[in-house]
């Protein structure tokens, strides 16, 4: 059941990314280029997503268990610490350099593997390196 939900959620999420324009680095960089010919349209992606998800998360908060699962995943911390900020800075620089964030990277990999493989390989290498460091330190 959870596998099916996971696949349908991933499929819907990916179709949303493709429809929204988030899969195009041109569009993403145009949105981030506030000092240039700024294209604000991608703000509607985050706006539409949050406005849609907000009531669903609110509904979930009134329940003790999910409709088809054992428990709600609770993020381990609410702390705004140096780790969070430095991670967000590094991610932001990478996002600004190529105009690709993790979701679109995986959708783009299926659309144009030749042009996306280097980014996705490096992204996975970075993810694994950081996870390995964290395990060794913690």
């Amino acid at each position, binding site marked *: 059941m959870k596998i099916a939900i996971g696949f349908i959620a991933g499929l819907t999420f990916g*179709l949303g990314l493709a429809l929204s324009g988030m899969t195009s680095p041109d569009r993403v960089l145009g949105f981030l280029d506030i000092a240039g010919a700024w294209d604000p349209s991608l703000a509607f992606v985050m706006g539409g997503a949050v406005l849609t998800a907000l009531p669903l998360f609110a509904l979930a908060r009134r329940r003790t268990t999910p409709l088809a699962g054992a428990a709600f995943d609770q993020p381990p911390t609410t*702390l705004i610490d140096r780790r969070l900020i430095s991670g967000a800075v590094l991610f932001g620089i990478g996002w600004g350099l190529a105009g690709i964030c993790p979701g679109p990277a995986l959708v783009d990999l299926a659309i144009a593997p030749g042009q996306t493989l280097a980014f996705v390989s490096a992204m*996975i290498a970075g993810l694994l390196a950081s996870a390995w460091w964290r395990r060794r330190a913690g």
Partner: protein
Amino acid sequence: MLDPFLAPLAGGVLIGLASGGLYLLAGEIAGITGIARSALIGPARGWQAAFIAGLLAAGLAAAWAKGPALVAGIEQTSLPVMVLAGLLVGLGTDIGNGCTSGHGVCGLSRLSRRSLAAVAVFMAAAATTVYLVRHAGVL
């Protein structure tokens, strides 16, 4: 062709449905970074691998329907910059424990102050990077 603001809005609604639906039904956060990490190195792997398969299937379906215009601009970034950008995205999202989906869509929808801080910082860092590259001649 949809109105330039309507397609992003409709795409956002689909993303919101997927994120809110995954939480309400399965109790899981649709953060791509965390899902990719779990799919690769665990602990649990099943639904996460299915989610990634769904993302890839969406890419194939979209490519069949609309073609390479979907990834317009991807050819303009040089290979070394692609690798550097990918590394920074992988490192940063693991260290900061989330990206545009986990902190952005899910975090903001959960009204998390921690996620709001992360979104403000990565948006500012990304916009600053684009400014430096496009208008100040860096790189």
